[in-house]
């Protein structure tokens, strides 16, 4: 207690001293701002102070950066990354000052992590945080953000695990490189959380070895943790006024007590054994003690309660994206924390990890702040400990409020954080990430990366060394067969496939050991998607059980027993030789439209025995149900006549004997009906068997093909829509070109000659028309001349060549001759084409001329003048 008191006093002293100094500093900072006015008086004071302060040496954080600067392309970065604004310079000065004071006051503490180097410059930590709200709904909540950051970036260890890094890169670079150390992780996450409206802070502190190395091998994989079954607190109904008393209990109390005692002992024994076992296991699992425990620097994110309905402050480890309570054992201490507004130094003792820390940042005793922001967190009054300090505080507060609103944190130099949709979808670097947990291994892939749609695989192991596989769970996405999750249990050999709604056979779950038919298998269905309302079909080698729901005939259950397959002489395939059915049991739910005595609850066709058993539903206030049993024996009486029906062929018990049911006729009709039903049921069973075969075949095909679905909204992957879109774009482009051409104005060059802004006179219009026409005529003639000229030139050339050939015909090599011949044919071709063109031009030219003339007459600009003329 005494020690504590002393400590408090020390702190008080420090506080007072600092307050005084701060006041000085305030004075200093002001002149800096008004430096242009050159107030010499304060300038001197400043120099004096600076001199004094500069005597205090600060240890410079040093270390080799992992991302060396030459790996980063600095040239593309915006200017704000390379230079400091005056305000930032000012801030750096303030920070330097603050740092000096701090090392003066607390010489035994580690230097502050205030202004690490960025890619090119020396900024301040807080301005590295750029609050940005991401345009993805998944990133609106903290868990989404944390998971994204942990997935998106690859972890790079700190250059020196005991010191903060010398460089702190902007989130832009980190995102581009997709790797970073814990500080980079935290900065990015913090930016995103702040953008999403959380009260988030980057924390510089000390973490456990597992935390710093992102070692999850001692953690239980979150996917393997089964959700806790909500304990059903069945509200015991209030005993009603008239509730009857239970019959008197006549068993011996003593015996009961003895029994309970015995059971308790046995239980205790068992529990003890179990506990011992557990302890032994724990012992084995325990890690070696870490020699650097408590010294490893780590950076994580703190989210304070209050904003976004966060009920309690918690930590997020940016490496794993998991949240921890602020009392967690992994977090061993806090040096300082910051966000885009301010920087706080922890003044509390961390002897008990972070468990006793109070995150009340407005409390200057616990948290020393660097800037007096306008938005400083509320000082909770109930936490006020030192009555004596109250006055000082008040004075300080006053001072702050009056003098120090002048300086706040400059806005971030970092560009807005952007993540492209592709990068967001790919998530992990190269779309793949592997995490090792305790007895589990988690692999993640980006969608569409694997051709079979695999996006996640969780392998659970039996032992800590991860050699014996216990079970494998594979999650799929975008599968055409709507397969969602595949679960393989190695110990039981059971495969379980889960499907989303939309499978062509309405399959929901498929549990099997092999894909061979007539084996143990369970298929569950989306019953609303099926016409027959089948929910579940269970199979064993000898039975098949089906469960139905919502059928108009009220069938709810059908159980089929198969006998051994009869070997046919002609060895036929399985399809044509179905197993014989020995028994079919069908159960029906109550049909409210029928009286209970006529509503069959269960009917059993004993096919081998030629018997049919019926059990009816029980009446509301009865405890026995009617039963009927038919023997289908076709016997012949003594005279050789066939016995149709005798009373011993139907044994029945009726709850309330009725007259008409005793009649043989009734029994006969019922039996005939049942025989028919038996046939139908057999057929149904046969169809079910066929369906199983069909489903198995389909599943095999699907597994083989494993085609992936591409949403029509996915413009990048959907080839069809891409083609279509491109075609559309092409068409649009062509259309545009045509329009531009159509808009070419043939009058424009002539109109331009006229003085602008004046109305055309008739004379001008006529002149314009004539000019235009003559110009066109000239063009046509020119064109004809041009063709003519080319034609003649070709002709001359040809003649020349021919002449040359004639002259040298004797001395020519066959190659030269070939050359000549090919030239000739080409030249002839050209000449012919030119001739054709010339003829065509001659034909069309007058027409074109007339067309232009007509067009000119119709031109809205000239029409009225020319009409008169015409």
């Amino acid at each position, binding site marked *: 207690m005494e020690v504590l008191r002393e400590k408090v006093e020390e702190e008080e002293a420090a506080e007072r001293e600092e307050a005084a100094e701060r006041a000085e500093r305030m004075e200093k900072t002001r002149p800096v701002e008004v430096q242009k006015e050159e107030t010499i008086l304060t300038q001197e004071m400043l120099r004096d102070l600076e001199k004094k302060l500069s005597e205090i040496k600060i240890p410079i954080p040093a270390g080799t950066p992992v991302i060396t600067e030459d790996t980063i392309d600095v040239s593309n970065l915006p200017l704000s990354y390379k230079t400091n604004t005056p305000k930032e310079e000012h801030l750096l000065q303030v920070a330097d000052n603050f740092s000096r004071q701090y090392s003066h006051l607390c010489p035994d503490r580690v230097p502050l992590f205030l202004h690490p180097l960025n890619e090119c410059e020396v900024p301040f930590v807080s301005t590295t945080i750029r609050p940005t709200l991401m345009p993805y709904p998944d990133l609106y909540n903290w868990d989404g953000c944390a998971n994204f950051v942990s997935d998106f970036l690859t972890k790079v260890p700190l250059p020196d695990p005991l010191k903060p890094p010398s460089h702190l890169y902007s989130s832009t670079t980190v995102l581009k490189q997709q790797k970073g150390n814990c500080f980079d992780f935290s900065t990015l996450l913090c930016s995103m959380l702040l953008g999403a409206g959380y009260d988030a802070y980057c924390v510089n502190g000390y973490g456990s070895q597992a935390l710093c190395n992102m070692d999850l091998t001692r953690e239980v994989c979150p996917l393997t943790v089964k959700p806790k079954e909500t304990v059903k607190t069945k509200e015991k109904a209030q005993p*009603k*006024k008239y*509730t*009857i008393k239970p*019959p008197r209990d006549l068993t011996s109390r003593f015996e009961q007590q003895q029994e309970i005692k015995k059971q308790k002992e046995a239980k205790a024994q068992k529990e003890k054994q179990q506990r011992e076992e557990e302890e032994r296991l724990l012992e084995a699992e325990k890690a070696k003690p870490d020699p650097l425990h408590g010294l490893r620097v780590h950076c994580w994110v703190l989210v304070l309660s209050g904003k976004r309905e966060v009920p309690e402050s918690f930590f997020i480890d940016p490496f794993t994206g998991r949240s921890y309570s602020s009392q967690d054992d992994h977090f061993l201490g806090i040096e300082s924390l910051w966000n885009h507004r301010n920087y706080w130094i922890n003044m509390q003792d961390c002897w008990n990890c972070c468990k006793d820390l109070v995150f009340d940042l407005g409390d200057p005793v616990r948290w020393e702040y660097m800037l007096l922001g306008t938005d400083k967190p509320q000082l909770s009054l109930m936490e006020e400990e030192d009555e004596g300090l109250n006055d000082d505080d008040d004075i300080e507060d006053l001072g702050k409020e009056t003098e120090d609103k002048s300086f706040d944190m400059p806005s971030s130099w970092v560009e807005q954080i952007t993540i492209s949709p592709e990068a967001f979808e790919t998530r992990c670097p190269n779309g793949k990430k592997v995490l090792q947990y305790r007895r589990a291994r988690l692999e993640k892939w980006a969608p569409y990366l694997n051709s079979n749609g695999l996006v996640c695989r969780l392998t659970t192991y039996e032992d800590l060394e991860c050699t014996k596989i216990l079970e494998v769970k594979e999650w799929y996405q975008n599968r055409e067969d709507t397969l969602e999750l595949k679960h393989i249990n190695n110990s039981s050999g059971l495969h379980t496939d889960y499907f989303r709604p939309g499978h062509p056979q309405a399959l929901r779950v498929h549990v099997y050991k092999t894909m061979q038919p007539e084996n143990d298998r369970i298929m569950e269905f989306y019953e609303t998607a099926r016409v027959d309302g089948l929910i579940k079909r269970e199979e064993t080698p000898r039975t098949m059980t089906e469960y139905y729901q919502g059928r108009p005939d009220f069938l709810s259950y059908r159980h089929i027993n198969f006998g051994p397959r009869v070997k046919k002489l002609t060895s036929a395939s399985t399809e044509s030789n179905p197993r014989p059915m020995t028994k079919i049991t069908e159960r029906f739910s109550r049909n409210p439209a029928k009286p209970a005595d006529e509503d069959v609850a269960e009917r059993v066709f004993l096919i081998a025995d030629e018997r049919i058993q019926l059990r009816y539903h029980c009446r509301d206030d009865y*405890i*026995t149900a009617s039963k009927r049993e038919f023997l289908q024996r076709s016997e012949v009486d003594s005279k050789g006549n066939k016995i149709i029906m005798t009373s011993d062929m139907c044994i029945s018990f009726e709850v309330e004997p009725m007259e*008409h049911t005793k009649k*043989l*006729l009734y029994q006969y009709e019922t039996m005939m009906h049942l025989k028919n039903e038996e046939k139908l049921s057999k057929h149904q069973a046969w169809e079910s068997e066929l369906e199983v075969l069909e489903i198995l075949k389909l599943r095999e095909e699907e597994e083989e093909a494993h085609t992936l679905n591409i949403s029509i909204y996915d413009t990048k992957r959907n080839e069809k829509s891409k083609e279509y879109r491109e075609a559309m774009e092409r068409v649009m482009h062509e259309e545009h070109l045509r329009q531009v051409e159509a808009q070419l104005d043939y009058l424009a060059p002539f109109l331009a000659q006229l003085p602008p802004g004046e109305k055309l006179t008739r004379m001008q219009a006529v002149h314009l028309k004539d000019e235009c026409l003559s110009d066109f005529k000239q063009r046509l003639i020119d064109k004809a001349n041009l063709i003519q000229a080319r034609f003649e030139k070709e002709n001359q050339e040809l003649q020349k060549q021919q002449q040359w050939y004639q002259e040298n015909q004797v001395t020519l090599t066959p190659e030269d001759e070939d050359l000549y011949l090919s030239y000739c044919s080409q030249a002839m071709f050209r000449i012919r084409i030119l001739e054709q063109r010339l003829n065509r031009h001659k034909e069309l030219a007058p027409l074109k001329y007339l067309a232009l003339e007509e067009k000119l007459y119709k031109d809205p600009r000239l029409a009225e003048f020319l009409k008169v003329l015409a």
Partner: protein
Amino acid sequence: MLSSGKMNRIYDSVEPRVIDDDMLKLAVGEQGPQEEAGQLAKQEGILFKDVLSLQLDFQNILRIDNLWQFESLQKLQLDNNIIERIEGLENLTQLVWLDLSFNNIKVIEGLDTLVNLEDLSLFNNRISKIDSLDTLVKLQVLSLGNNQIDNMMNIIYLRQFKCLRTLSLSGNPITQAEDYKMFICAHLPDLMYLDFRRIDDHMKDLAEMKYQYTIDELKHREHLRQAQLQEEQAQIMKLEEYKMAFVENLNGSFLFDSMYAEDMEGNKLSCLPIVGELLEVYKDKFVIICLNIFEYGLKQHEKRKLELDTFTECVQEAIQENQEQGKLRIARFEEKHLLNLSAIREESELLAIEKKIVECSEDITELFNVLMTLELQLVEQLEFFADKDTIVNAVGASHDMHLLKIDNREDELVTRINSWCTHLVDKIHKDEVMRNRKRVKEINQYIDHLQSELDNLECGDMD
């Protein structure tokens, strides 16, 4: 069948007949089940009350009779006879299909009890008015062709049959009217077929437009009548409720008026000048008290109802639980019993069989004992607690209030409440006794069945 019918007709054409037993027996025999089932039927004989369908056409029948036994008859054909009056069909309440075409019927009558009738054919008769069909609410098909119906108002009568879809009136004088079809379409909007033809929507629309005003008026009138009926019903319901609460006629001055209605002296007194005013004041106060009592009574009634509900609920719960237990026992027993029986069937040694049979019958006795114990337990439980005090309590409280009241009325109230109470308790007891007897009977029956089954088995094995 047909040929025999024709023969009959020719044979009997001279003499009109009355339906008699012989005719019915013959018809039932001929129209009953055929082949194997027919042999069985012949062997056993068919009871009239099991017959579902009967055909009596071309029999020259003049009078319907002797049909009272056919309780479950659903289809009856009496066409092509010379019937003049519809009679003797009162007992055939299950009838769905009735064919009386080609007869000499003049008036529709005697169909009031056939509430399930859906299809009625009176084709080719001498009917001139559609009437007496009010109770046939399920009527879907009505065939009245070739009759003498000549008034359009008959159509409006048919508006009350909400299920009527098919109507035939061809060959009636009414069809001569020029807007005959329109009129029917407008007045029977749910009708689908008229005179063997489907009514198209266009026709319906046209008809609706044409007769909009008359139909609206009709509808309005019908609506008013409906509302009135409902109101009356509600009134009756309310009165019933008040009666249940024993406070009927207390929410007004009825009691006061009735008091003075017989009080000659009082009437005389009221003639005096001041007494009149006093009487008014008295009356007002009286009515207020009456209203108080009325409300109080209703509240007490609610309370009683609640009490009674919890009571029945608890009893039901107990019975239900008991029932479940019984069912469980039986299910368990049956499982074992079945195994035992099959074991006996397979056993070949006589001694072993006998031993097993003895075991079985022991099981049966045990089951009987268990079930009976369960039942007795329930009876005991129910008996001890069904004390009426709690229910009477509510009555007692209201009694105090009633002291303020005129003796006469109070006595009536109290006696009624008491009688209600005793009645209730009696009923509960009676119900319980009934239930108990039923259950004991059921158990005995079941045990008997099991025993006889076992005996049969025994006999079979002995043979």
